[in-house]
């Protein structure tokens, strides 16, 4: 009985100590250079079913930058994390289809974490996750009727910017980054991010934007202590070809 207690108590103590000494990683991502002008989505306006759902001009934003050059929608991940994915227990991430546009267009979740796709549109869509063939994630293509029941997906392997598309409306795109640990973030409108409760230790932190810096991760070495850590990034805007 004594051994049995120790079997549970010791790991719980270690976990408790780790949590007590865990820190938050905070930082900000800015864009170095000027973003290109937003692209007007002519296709959506031309569609007889989706066009009437929009009063204003619909634009495709590749770079969402605020007045201080804060870069939204940058994925922040850690390399060298000892922890495993807690995706199966994590709450589902929701991807909405409103007015024939995916919201949000940039997502991140863990392996095994549920992605729930909703369709409040009065239009039929297909939901088609098209992973990189080398990732090991499965490609599927499911139809979803207007106001139809939700569709769920999970992804078994890590992958950057896994494309989700609607084949009925080819301009509909969303990009899901799949991570195999719970320590990641997406930058907000001002470019800031926070990864909470990171176990103490040295890590490589990566900032990846779908377009900035050529879509390649920009890395930094950091050490997380109970006081946390800070990492700011400056990603490059489009270069002349």
């Amino acid at each position, binding site marked *: 009985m004594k051994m049995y207690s120790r079997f549970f108590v010791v790991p719980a103590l270690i976990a408790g100590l780790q949590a007590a000494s865990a820190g938050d990683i905070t930082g900000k991502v800015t864009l170095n250079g000027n973003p290109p002008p937003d*692209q007007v989505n002519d296709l959506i306006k031309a569609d007889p079913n989706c066009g009437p759902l929009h009063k204003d001009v619909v634009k495709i934003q590749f770079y969402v930058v605020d007045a201080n050059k804060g870069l939204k929608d940058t994925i922040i991940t850690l390399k060298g994390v000892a922890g495993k994915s807690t995706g199966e227990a994590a709450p589902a991430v929701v991807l909405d289809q409103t007015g024939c546009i995916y919201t949000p267009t940039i997502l991140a979740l863990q392996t095994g974490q549920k992605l729930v796709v909703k369709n409040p549109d009065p239009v039929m869509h297909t939901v088609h996750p098209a992973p990189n063939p080398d990732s090991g994630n499965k*490609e599927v*293509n499911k*139809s979803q009727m207007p106001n139809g029941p939700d569709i769920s997906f999970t992804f078994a392997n890590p992958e950057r910017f896994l494309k989700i598309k609607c084949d*009925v409306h080819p301009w509909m795109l969303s990009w899901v980054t799949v991570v195999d640990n719970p320590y990641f973030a997406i930058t907000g409108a001002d470019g800031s991010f926070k990864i909470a409760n990171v176990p103490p230790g040295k890590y490589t932190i990566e900032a990846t934007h779908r377009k900035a810096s050529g879509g390649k991760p920009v890395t930094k070495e950091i050490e997380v202590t109970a006081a946390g850590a800070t990492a700011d990034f400056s990603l490059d805007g489009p*270069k002349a*070809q």
Partner: protein
Amino acid sequence: MPHVKPSLPAAPGGPGLHRFAWLTAGVTLGLIGLGGLVTSHGVGMAVPDWPTTYGYNMFFFPISQWVGGIFYEHTHRLLASGVGLLTTILALWLWGTKARKLLRWGGVAFLVGAASRPWWLPHDAHQTGASLGIVGAVALAASFVWPRREPSARHLRWMGVAAFFGVVLQGVLGGLRVVLFRDGIGVFHAALAQLFLVLVTLIAVFTGRWWAGLIREQSSRGRGAAAGLRLGLPALTGLIFCQLVVAATMRHQHAGLAIPDFPLAYHQIWPALDPASVATYNANRIETVAVNPITAGQIVLQLVHRLLAVLIFTGIAWVAGSTWRQLTWRHPLTRGAAVWLGLVLLQVGLGAWTIWSNKAADIATAHVVVGALCLVTGALLTALAFRVLIPGRVSLPATVARTNRGAPAGAPQVNLTH
């Protein structure tokens, strides 16, 4: 130096068969265009199931649901079924009275299939049963009124059989592309479509009076052109087919324009292909539809496409010049080569326009259709060269005799008209 008898012999198989074959070829070209629209709009997966359409038997899918990309993909499938039907009728027609038995037993088999309520399609068993029943009943009824005409020449009959199996294979490939998510199957599907169009067009030409009336050319000038053209035409046609396979590969990589400018490539004659440069190209791309990131290999492939275009254009210009110099303007090869040159010029223009328009769907589709016409024209000119141009060692009377021997029974004999 006429090459066609003033009074043409009757078309082998009758004018109805000849016109029907042309109808099949024309609808096939339309189908290739529609397939081009599907890939140009990036909606090849808009109907995620096959052989059903959103769970329906495809012929019962409500028109109200033909929206967005579904419209292109679904109409492509319906038109493909139409080409399948036309090809089946064409193949049976070529077999003449011999097709009666096949129609009768085929009709019975379809009716039995309909009565058994197809178990392999649980969602649309009634609809599929009805479709099979209608086809079976029509085939059975047709077997009683099928014309008792003589079968066409042996080679035509077997071309019909090849077309039938080709169209079946083509349909299966199209379906497998959807359910297996394999772009490679899409490339094969696109390439086979081109070969199928060539086959059906050749059937159309071979069943015509014009073809039956052609005689072999044996003038001194024609003899000089014969060797070069009989070698050059099939080589050029093969090169065009290779070009179409390269183009199909580019389209089915779903990467959009790997090179966004023309005539240069990323403002250079030969663009940088190192990973950093390719990453910059990708970062600078403005994608409004779902396209995959481009790779160095895809850039090279588009450069190969451009180089092949130059080679093909040069080759066709040589053919046009060669026929112009060595044959008369009235010679069908000279006229055909002029049409070919016009088509390839148009094709080069459309290729450039495809890039300048950022791959606008209608322009890119026109590029696909004219590409198919270039291949078909090459195949027809090749067949024509082997029909009318002979090396000097073959004597004309023997040739004409051989032509007459190959004609179907009852067909008028080819005579010298010089």
